[in-house]
């Protein structure tokens, strides 16, 4: 009802406030550019900026993927020979070493992403539900939860890398020296355990974002729903299942997608934690591509892998949006 009132007022003022001579002028402008062109014209500066900042580098990257852009050609890369789909073939030939390494890296990244997003979401949703009701010190606790998100990535991850050191690190001091959980001090930054080290840091770094988003989402759930449910005899668990989670659905849809994309592409965490050459168990695809281009100076190859990564992420995003949209339509 209030919306309608505003609508009518706006329409009214629009009509009355416009001076008599302005209407023909506007009509002339409209005639000139055709109906509906004006909004596009006004969007043009933004569109150009978008092109410059996002599309041009992307397209350049795609072009590079079709070139044999090695160190011999980077000085004048228009002279690099076109290589057709060679770079892609090398990357996708899973029996050969390069393709095999890429595939391995891809699986590691998938496992890592699923676990990291899953755990971040779980911890985030748990924490936000626990802090939903007011209690003494809630603000302080929420602020403390947000700390990892506020810290600069480099500072945070380098601290983790110190803690994960085998001989002098805090983790082994606690696990081995104090709790005696392990017979021997395990390695965390090299070997198979590096995967779990990376996962720990990643979850630590990204769950506060889930927490923040979900806390915001919880504010929109009317208290009356819970009161009504409580009157009907629903327990806490049922309230969470029947009210909280369904109400958070729209938030979750976006949150999981964003977390997925960030985690899948994460470069900073493994790079700061492991340096230029990540251990095989934690060879995330972004680091792998960096190695394939910057360290071996084969930029065409690296670009081809990036394009494949882009296609994969587009596909996942499209399927995800399609599936979740259909479920919503079915639900309605």
């Amino acid at each position, binding site marked *: 009802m209030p919306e309608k009132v505003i609508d009518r007022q706006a329409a009214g003022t629009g009509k009355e406030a416009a001076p008599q001579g302005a209407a023909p002028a506007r009509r002339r402008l409209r005639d000139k550019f055709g109906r509906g062109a004006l909004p596009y014209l006004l969007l043009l500066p933004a569109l150009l900026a978008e092109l410059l900042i996002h599309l041009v580098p992307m*397209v350049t990257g795609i072009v590079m993927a079709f070139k044999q852009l090695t160190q011999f050609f980077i000085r004048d890369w*228009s002279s690099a020979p076109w290589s057709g789909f060679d770079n892609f073939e090398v990357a996708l030939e899973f029996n050969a070493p390069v393709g095999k390494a890429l595939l391995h890296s891809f699986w590691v990244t998938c496992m890592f992403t699923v676990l990291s997003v899953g755990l971040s979401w779980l911890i985030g949703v748990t924490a936000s539900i626990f802090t939903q009701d007011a209690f003494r010190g809630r603000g302080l606790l929420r602020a403390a939860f947000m700390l990892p998100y506020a810290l600069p990535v480099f500072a945070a991850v380098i601290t983790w890398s110190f803690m994960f050191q085998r001989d002098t690190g805090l983790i082994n001091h606690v696990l081995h020296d104090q709790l005696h959980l392990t017979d021997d001090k395990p390695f965390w930054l*090299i070997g198979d355990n590096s995967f779990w080290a990376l996962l720990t840091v990643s979850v630590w770094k990204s769950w506060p974002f889930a927490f923040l988003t979900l806390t915001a989402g919880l504010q929109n759930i009317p208290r009356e729903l819970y009161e009504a449910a409580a009157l009907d005899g629903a327990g806490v668990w049922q309230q969470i299942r029947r009210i909280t989670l369904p109400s958070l659905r729209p938030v979750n849809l976006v949150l999981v997608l964003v977390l997925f994309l960030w985690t899948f592409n994460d470069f900073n965490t493994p790079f700061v934690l492991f340096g230029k050459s990540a251990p095989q168990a934690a060879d995330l695809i972004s680091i792998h591509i960096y*190695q394939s281009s910057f360290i071996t100076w084969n930029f065409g190859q690296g670009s081809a892998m990036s394009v494949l990564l882009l296609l994969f992420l587009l596909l996942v995003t499209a399927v995800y949006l399609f599936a979740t949209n259909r479920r919503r339509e079915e639900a309605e």
Partner: protein
Amino acid sequence: MRTHRISAALALTAAIVLTASACGGGDSGGSNSSPKTLTYWASNQGSSLENDKQVLEPELKKFEQQTGIKVNLEVIPWSDLLNRILAATASGQGPDVLNIGNTWSASLQATGALLPFDQATFDKIGGKDRFLESTIASAGAKGKDPAAVPLYSMAYGLYYNKKLFQAAGIANPPATWEELVEDGKKLTSGDKYGLAIEGGNVSENVHHAFTLGMQHGTGFYDASGKPTFDSPEAVAAVKQYVDFIANDKIAAPGNAEYAANQSVTDFATGKAAMLMWQSAGANLKSHGMNPDDYGVVPVPAPAGATGDKATTSMVAGINLAVFKNTKNLDGALNFVKFMTSDEEQKTLNGTYGSLPPVKAAQSDAAFSTPELQTLAGVLQKSAAPLPQVPSESQFETLVGTAVKNLLASAAAGKPITEATVKDELSKAQQQMPAS
């Protein structure tokens, strides 16, 4: 409406692709269009970037007084330097003069971004003969004009803790690997170890693998320049290095993840009795180790080895290069001449604890400490440049990573055999570009 939008997008994309491929790439050759300024990218040689500025600024002032050319200095950390150079190469917008790690010489030479030092160019800076031969050999591929000139030189030496050796009843530092392993075992007890290695550092790994490879008779490339990473000689060399942790157990398993110079700290604090390092003096001093407490000898070699098999170090160091697109070619060469002059060589190398690659400057008293005398001897007699081939940077990364992986499995207690070493090296080799 929708098809309209799509076709518009396609047209736009095509337009961008066309413009993108039309630009890119710089014009070739230098000029003298801005003769009064130079931009110089220095590498991080001192204890911090700030320290480097303090060392270099007074020298650059001197140059400005002599020539009237103002040098804009930027000190770039090692982690960024190569990427910055590649970006400068790709865009054509770079410094006039820059420091490069000497092992990158051939790789960067292949990009064509650096000014080749032919006879005429060398004449302008005082001639090729002023430099040590081995340092010139590490400034570009064999048979080509060097892509840079040597600026600071370093070599590996074996640093040993005199007190610990005395306490273990060892009279002389080891000269062969058998002796090193034997001494190492005597020096290893409890949490003290005979040797410290920087096993998580890819570059350190590949440097040692290279020296051992030369001693076993391989430079990791065959005569035609093809990589031979998994030859029997290479396998033996890498296994020997990994065995310090795996079989000899004279290095602590924890060394496998060292990548932040912890091995230097371990040596300085007496947790390890030996260390193979390049020009460690200044570093050890900052950890409070007195020069009298340690001795330096060449890294061991097989008994009775001669020629390449007696190699005990790579030629380590920093080269000075001129960017081909410079707008001040004469000034840049003038600056190179200044930086490689006897006087500057003495000042700068003296401050940084490195050795002057310029012969005449080496006789200075600053370089007569026992440490630097040993290293100078290594550089003259038993140092070989890393393979000067365009794919050198791939070699460093791939073989260095293979050694790192092997050390990691050795540290985790997995058996290291010739087969496991060969397997890892074959994987490295297969990732080299086919051409």
